[in-house]
């Protein structure tokens, strides 16, 4: 043990942790980062990024299947799933190496190992790092816990990596199964459903709630649901999984739809039923750190009840999104560095994206949530069928829905489904951040021909001024 006392030690190298470390270094703080497995975290190694590589492959497959429409003919299309996953892994490792380079460039000391925090003095915290080379101890004035989360299992069924898959196995299949049951219709479940369906797998989605993508606006969920059903995906909402029986090469899932039980057989089953925060064995119990429903509780500047210990990202409350973790990382470090004029995170302005086909992106309140809050709203809707660029792309299924406060003109929410909407949503993010009203949005010039014109039209429609619908 040396005498160096870091300003900040970050625990976890995901999109929360590594961003925190780089920002801390930019602000002149001495900083170390402890990572147990892989720099970049789940997001980069086993989440956001590799799944996007997979979905790119299935999107190409879908285009090849429909290439006649554009005047081409191809035959004998074969899927080599090993090559598809290989590419996905390559993308992940390329980016992980990139993170390592960025940390080095920013003079962040990286420790490979598992960290456990402990008390030292009032002002100084101890971090024990267990690695294959033994244990060493580092000291820091501030600790940022960015340990993330892992996928949840159900009480009666656990992922085994053979028949019952978690996201990791689902992302690296050895072979394409004939049939697949996906438990949970959140972003992860829907992305795998879309991917495997496009590659020709018979997919069934089980959702306990009334709508798939239950966090999205109902109009949006319905469009995705209709699209999935048309593609042959079996959607079972209001349905819960009761038990799972595994035989040699098949899974029997007992499900209950509105109290009526039935049995589905499939080759594989994917559990996509949420996450559990990684709060175990990292020494939290030694401190006055509150945990609520498994997640660390912090104040608006991400500080826990223990002075000098911060928590960001998935280990804290939702939404559990990489960009929320990164944003919290910046805010938290700037707070530690004593920067002024900081604005706490506004959770109503965090965009959410799902990269299934068709893509889904949204920000702010759904129509239902706005009504529950008794907001007097005005709703605008514009279908992509009225958008020239979408028709030219051959991808005109979808809708842009905007919700305004009728009294003030505040953009309360925006919900989109359709081509590239995950790239479009930032326009509404900026609008919300700058607190624009319908006036500024209506008088913004959107370039023609683009998909983004649909955003403009949706705003116009809310005030009965849409031109192309």
């Amino acid at each position, binding site marked *: 043990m040396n005498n160096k006392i870091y300003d900040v030690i970050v625990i976890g190298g995901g999109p929360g942790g590594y961003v925190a470390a780089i920002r801390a270094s930019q602000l002149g703080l001495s900083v170390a980062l402890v990572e147990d497995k892989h720099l970049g975290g789940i997001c980069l190694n086993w989440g956001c990024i590799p799944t996007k590589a997979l979905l790119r492959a299935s999107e190409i497959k879908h285009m090849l299947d429909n290439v006649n429409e554009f005047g081409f003919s191809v035959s004998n299309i074969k899927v080599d799933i090993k090559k598809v996953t290989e590419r996905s892994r390559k993308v992940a490792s390329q980016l992980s190496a990139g993170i390592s380079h960025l940390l080095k460039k920013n003079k962040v000391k990286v420790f490979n190992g598992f960290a456990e925090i402990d008390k030292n003095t009032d002002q100084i915290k101890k971090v024990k790092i267990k690695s294959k080379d033994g244990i060493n101890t580092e000291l820091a004035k501030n600790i940022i816990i960015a340990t993330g989360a892992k996928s949840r299992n159900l009480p009666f069924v656990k992922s085994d990596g053979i028949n019952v898959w978690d996201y990791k196995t689902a992302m690296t299949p050895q072979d394409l199964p004939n049939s697949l049951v996906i438990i949970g219709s959140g972003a992860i479940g829907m992305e795998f459903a879309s991917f495997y369906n496009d590659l020709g797998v018979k997919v069934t989605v089980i959702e306990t709630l009334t709508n798939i993508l239950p966090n999205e606006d109902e109009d949006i969920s319905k469009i995705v649901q209709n699209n999935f059903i048309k593609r042959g995906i079996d959607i079972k909402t209001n349905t819960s999984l009761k038990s799972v029986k595994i035989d040699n090469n098949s899974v029997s899932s007992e499900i209950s739809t509105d109290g009526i039980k039935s049995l589905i057989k499939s080759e594989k089953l994917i559990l996509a039923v949420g996450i559990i925060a990684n709060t175990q064995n990292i020494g939290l119990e030694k401190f006055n750190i509150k945990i609520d429903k498994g997640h660390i509780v912090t104040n608006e500047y991400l500080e826990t009840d223990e002075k000098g210990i911060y928590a960001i990202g998935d280990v804290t409350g939702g939404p559990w999104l990489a960009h929320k973790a990164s944003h919290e990382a910046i805010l938290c470090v700037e707070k530690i560095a004593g920067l002024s*004029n900081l*604005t706490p995170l506004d959770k109503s302005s965090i965009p959410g994206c799902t990269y299934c086909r068709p893509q889904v992106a949204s920000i702010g309140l759904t129509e239902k949530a706005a009504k529950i809050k008794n907001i007097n709203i005005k709703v605008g809707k514009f279908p992509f069928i009225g958008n020239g660029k979408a028709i030219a792309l051959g991808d005109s299924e979808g809708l842009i829905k905007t919700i305004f406060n009728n*009294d*003030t*003109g*505040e953009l309360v929410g925006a919900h989109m489904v359709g081509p590239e909407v995950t790239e479009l949503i930032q326009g509404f993010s900026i609008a919300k951040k700058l*607190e*624009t009203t319908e*006036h500024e949005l209506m008088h913004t010039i959107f370039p023609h021909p683009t998909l983004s014109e649909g955003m403009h039209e949706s705003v116009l429609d809310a005030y009965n001024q849409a031109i192309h619908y």
Partner: protein
Amino acid sequence: MSINILMPALSPTMEEGTLAKWLVKEGDKVNSGDLIAEIETDKATMEVEAVDEGVIGKILVTEGQESIQVNQPIAVLLINGEKLSEIVIDDNIPEEPKPKKNVVNDTNNEENDLPSLSEDELISEKTSFVQKNEVLNTINSNRLFATPLAKRLAKQRDIDLSLLTGSGPNGRILKIDIENFKEEKKSQVDNIPLSNNNSELIKNSSMRKTIAERLVKSKNEAPHFYLSIDCNIEQLLKARSTINSKSNNEYKISVNDMIIKAASATLLKVPKANASWENENTRYFKNTDISVAVAIDGGLITPIIKNVEFKGLLEISNEMKTLAQKAKEGKLKPEDYIGGSFSISNLGMYGIKEFSAVINPPQGCILAIGVGEQRAIVTNNQISIATMMTVTLSCDHRVVDGAVGAEYLSKFKEFIENPSLMLL
């Protein structure tokens, strides 16, 4: 070539004025420096000099015309034997800055080739510089940064955005600031009952606003502290009656005149009190230029008696009378009241015993004079009666410390109680 003679800005804050008197008439030949008109503002009456040589071609405003905007043309000066018929006159008030070409048709002026220069910018460089700066300051202090939503909410809820502090980047006012403000405002309204008393709104004159601005600046920026001392003025009164008894009605020296002299004499003894704070430096004045507060209709003004150290009581007295008269008639020139190193304010004639005056920035001290009155005093275990006067010195602590202020007052007392020392 012809030149427009423009309404001058007699002070940085002047926006308009009255043409009190024309000292020239059309056809008169003028040389640079000749007086051509008298202009009256809220503060003073000033004479306007001709800048160029020429013939008054046309007078554009009549005598007594009020509210003439600064930079409005008031006359046209013909140069180089030009004839009036050769020029086109546009005597409209320039509402918006326009290219000079529209105002006077002078094809020889090279500046005409610069269409981006507005008329205002082509006036004397110094004037337009001051004005532009002012406009800029106004913009800076008035520009509010608020999000569109915050602006709309403020409008809907009738909230004055300038009362808010924004919590957004660079102080931008956000929706949340409006929401928080509403609560504050409500609680204030709940606490303060609205008065239904009869009242009358009187528009603040520019003098009133200038006074307000200067006093607020003084109280905000200069850390004031106050020292008081009682002076026995028996000797002073005796000296005064001796002086006045020999006057043959040619003069009448007042107690105030003698206080002005004493204040100056004291400054020579305690030069550290004759100072002004200038942020990076402190300025110590060598002259004793004494500003004397004079009440005038609608406000007050401080004409200056300069170099009091070289002046006798008679000169001080005569000058004070002239300045006070000019002040009351609004005829002080800026140099009569701008500057000064030390101020005196005397409310003795109202029977005020003592008071604390607000420092006249950028000066460092002001001496507040109370009434001379008979009081019971104790000397050598004996109660006796003497005419006493309490004076209070307000000091800007940035330049004058307590010991300096105290030294000033004790020396001042010495002069007042032994007026013959002022002869030294």
